[in-house]
């Protein structure tokens, strides 16, 4: 039960994009069309969940017993980069159809700070491996929700008549700001 609450809080209350500002690049850059944002969400869910589990396992079985915890950042970023690489190769060989819809987003995720951010905060909060995985999954669901909502809003108000200097980036940022205010409401739920 507490794990369920953890996942809900990671997805809604502490939304990774709208309240922690992690993973903004894909959030802004892949949210123009709903189709592409669906593919991105799928890729992010897979990668963040797997990366949380593996990074947490490495921390608990290798880094912590050897007192090497100061190597966290270096080890995690390398693990994430190679994990994404392997995943891309695996999907490409085993399921070309899935690769077309999901795999093309994988390289983009290596530099996604949400993945490293979740792995590091799992360690900071002293989560065990199982809790880390659930936390990663919840966070990724939160990302998927945010990017799908933004893509839907952007498809609708793309051609709205806004002042010239607010066209483009400021318009999208203001939309994200209003979404962020809306997500504040979840703080009262838990």
């Amino acid at each position, binding site marked *: 039960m507490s794990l369920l609450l953890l996942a809900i809080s990671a997805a809604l209350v502490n939304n990774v994009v709208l309240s922690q500002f992690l993973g903004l690049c894909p959030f802004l850059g892949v949210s123009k069309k709903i189709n592409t944002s669906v593919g991105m969400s799928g890729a992010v869910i897979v990668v963040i969940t797997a990366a949380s589990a593996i990074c947490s396992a490495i921390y608990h079985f290798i880094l912590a017993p050897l007192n090497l915890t100061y190597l966290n950042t270096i080890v995690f970023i390398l693990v994430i980069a190679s994990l994404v690489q392997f995943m891309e190769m695996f999907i490409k060989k085993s399921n070309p159809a899935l690769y077309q819809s999901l795999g093309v987003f994988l390289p983009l995720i290596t530099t996604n700070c949400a993945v490293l951010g979740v792995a590091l905060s799992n360690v900071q909060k002293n989560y065990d491996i199982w809790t880390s995985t659930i936390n990663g999954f919840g966070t990724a669901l939160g990302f998927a929700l945010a990017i799908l909502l933004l893509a839907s809003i952007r498809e609708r108000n793309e051609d709205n008549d806004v002042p010239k200097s*607010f066209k483009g980036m400021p318009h999208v940022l203001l939309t994200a700001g209003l979404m962020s205010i809306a997500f504040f409401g979840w703080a009262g739920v838990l």
Partner: protein
Amino acid sequence: MNKILERLHNGIIKENPILIMTLGMCPTLAVTTSLINGLGMGMSTLAVLVCSNFLISLLRKFIPDTVRIPAYIVIVASLVTIIQFVLQGFVPDLYSSLGIYIPLIVVNCIILGRAEAYASKSKIIPSIFDGIGMGLGFTMGLGILGFLRELIGNGTILSDGANALLKIPEEIYTPASVMILAPGAFIVLAFVIATMNKIKEKKGMKPAEVPDYTTKEGCAGCAAASMCAGAAPQTEAPADPLKAKAESAAIPRAVKPEVPKTETAVKEEKE
């Protein structure tokens, strides 16, 4: 000497990472709850950027092209770990308020972007000054955002909780505390970029566009575009037929040659 000044001018004014290029959004929005946090983050990034540009320029002839991105990541991650210890030891307050965003300097696309677009191709001294210029430009952007958010959201300038350099009395102005919360970050940045768009319009420059990583042109604008290309150098070729099929959905990864082009393109535009 000219080269040095040109690099500084390029980083601070012409290609300012936040105000002109709108790069490195995550730390920009996350840590600018006050002026001091913004400046602290900016200076930490500056230190990492200068050291990484120096090391990468120094090692540019020794790092094989195929493994350059992992090599850059290891260099940057080691530097970030050092900075983390320095901050923890000397400014523990700043360290705790920046929190997880310090290790996340590793994935700041400005650092890898500069390594790839400039330091890996240039001599040591210009690379160092390129780092200083870009770092100062980044610090300036963070400072402006932090200043505005602290002033509007808390009614203070350079506050440390108890004392402040300047405090607007409560009777005159009630702080709109939403501005130092998450939504305020998006809203303040939106207004800053809109202001920059107005200035750019007068100078005949292109306004800030939302990056679109689903098209080739949009991907080239991202400083980490070369990351995508470099992350999978061996798998690039077989990906091409698939990419041609799913043209609209595919993210082009072979955009490496375009990174230096964007720099020159900006130059040409200005001229």
